[in-house]
């Protein structure tokens, strides 16, 4: 028996919105420590890793480890039926082939439940090695989303260059070139508006805008975003989900093709 209850449906809605553009389907692995989802997009360029800790739920029970493969589009449709303030409960029997999602209004007067078929997905799990990143940038999530959106107008790819002074995002295409520089915040008054750079070594990497823009769908989940970079390894874009866990996106870089 698996049962997980969250006080506000809006969190779950935001989580689904943050992953459903990249992934058509995904497997929620439930254990007594919480819920995890790891999946690559179809092109195998990016990976979503979602962790929701059991202690972040209002109620969490998972007797046996359970993998629930879901069509994320269908899941998002069901969540659209919930009001933001509703309580949401996910329930499944052991070895079940369906999951039940129940919404209760705050005053307990309206209860709706939806049953969804589960899928048996053959998904490749990837082992992600521990990495010491040479640059870790924390910045306002909204700022990052804005930069990605703006630069996508100029080119398919954006160059992220991180030095001691700050972080620079640039793109160049037929229209011309665009550069956006962010300096490290001098004095931190409001933590959520700060740009903080932790650099061991300067890094310059190129990434596809398309994926970065897909990642920024997670912006409503968190005020800050953290970018971790290291030469020749995938970028990590992390959004914390308050009191519940985090969502991490991995993105493989673009490289110069010197073979041909």
């Amino acid at each position, binding site marked *: 028996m698996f049962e997980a209850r969250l006080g506000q449906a809006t969190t779950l809605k935001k989580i689904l919105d943050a992953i459903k553009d990249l992934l058509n389907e995904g497997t929620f692995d439930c254990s007594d420590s919480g819920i995890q989802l790891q999946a*690559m997009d*179809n*092109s*195998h*360029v*990016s*990976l979503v890793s979602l962790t929701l800790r059991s202690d972040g739920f209002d109620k969490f029970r998972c007797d046996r480890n359970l*993998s629930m493969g879901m069509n994320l589009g269908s899941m998002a449709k069901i969540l659209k039926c919930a009001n933001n303030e509703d309580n949401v409960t996910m329930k499944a029997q052991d070895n079940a082939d369906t999951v039940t999602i129940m919404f209760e209004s705050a005053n307990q007067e309206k209860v709706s439940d939806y049953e969804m078929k589960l899928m*048996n*997905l*053959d*998904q*490749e*799990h*990837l*082992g*992600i*090695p521990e990495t010491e990143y040479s640059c870790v940038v924390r910045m306002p999530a909204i700022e990052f989303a804005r930069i990605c959106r703006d630069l996508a107008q100029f080119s398919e*790819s954006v160059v992220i260059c991180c030095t001691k002074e700050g972080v620079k995002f640039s793109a160049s295409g037929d229209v011309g070139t665009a550069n956006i520089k962010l300096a490290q915040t001098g004095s931190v008054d409001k933590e959520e508006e700060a740009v903080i750079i932790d650099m061991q070594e300067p890094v310059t990497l*190129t990434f*596809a805008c398309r994926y970065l823009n897909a990642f920024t769908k997670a912006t409503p989940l968190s005020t800050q975003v953290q970018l971790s970079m290291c030469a020749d*390894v*995938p970028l990590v874009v992390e959004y914390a989900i308050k009191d519940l866990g985090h969502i991490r996106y*991995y993105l*493989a*870089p*673009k*490289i*110069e*093709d010197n073979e*041909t």
Partner: protein
Amino acid sequence: MGILGLSKLIADMAPLAIRESEIKNFFGRKVAIDASMCLYQFLIAVRSEGAQLATVNGDPTSHLMGMFYRTIRLLDNGIKPVYVFDGKPPDLKAGELAKRAERREEAEKALKLATDAGDEAEIEKFNRRLVRVTKEHSNEAKQLLKLMGVPYVDAPCEAEAQCAALVKAGKVYATATEDMDALTFGSCKLLRYLTYSEARKMPVKEFSYDKVLQGLELTSKEFIDLCILMGCDYCDSIKGVGPKRAIELIKSYRDIETILENIDTSKYTVPENWNYKRARELFVEPEVTDASDIDLKWTAPDEDGLVQFLCGDRQFNEERVRNGAKKLLKSKQAQTQVRLDSFFKTMPSTPNANASAAAKRKAEESKKSANNKKAKTSGGSGAARGRRPK
């Protein structure tokens, strides 16, 4: 021509070996393509008002048109093709080739009849059946590829075998073909429908060799025997043994020798002097050029060369050719997107998924065939692909 019913068998018994995805997900991949089959398809399919495109002298140019635009489309999607041309057919294929020659003769007769009767539709139908790829066509195609900066390989024998060798050596990612025998030759990955025109909106089917073996629970040797039983180009097969029977036999006896000892000869007629051993050798050790000796290089296109070659007598539109050349050049300059697979290691997948996926697929199929009589939507596709005579 491939192995009869193999793709359907794989879909039924090893569904996890097949993955469907969009063409754009194959960016950055190098693929080997059987050129002779492509040329044949183009000569049949690329037509305007039923007639082949031609030079001022009436020599066909359909194959060049097809080759030019298909290659551009692949490169535009970030896929790097290498074309492999057939060499001489193996001796064992003589039987199969004789059969094809027979069919051609029949078609020729039928064409005569139709011409006498003046039946336009029939004339066109049999005209298409008479299409064959000549040395001349191949040479023109090679010349075109050179100008486009796309590499090609001359196989000493069967192109499929050479493609498989390139894949096995890691020179390319997959063989893109409609013939399933690339799998029998041991191509680790086989892509179907990759070369189809975009208009069809078909997803590319990716077959993984190791997952095929895993799903069918066979070794590579047993898989080859299975393919021979199912019917290949190189020898006859036992009458009355279809795909289902073939896999049962292989699973209980493990090789053709043992099957022959145990088979009920009153029910099944084994061909006389059945040459399955030679066929097997052909699959195990085909005549190919050592892939490590092959150097694949994609270079910049020669725009003026292309214009000179395609326009003029061959009547291509100069503006379009120049645009094509620009696209080729552009595809060369783009940076390459890396995949996560090259950084993170895959962990073993869930073992029970295979069985249940197979069960599910079966259930869906039976539902489908119950609803409408035109079942077999999944495996077949035979009607759409051109057979290749030689």
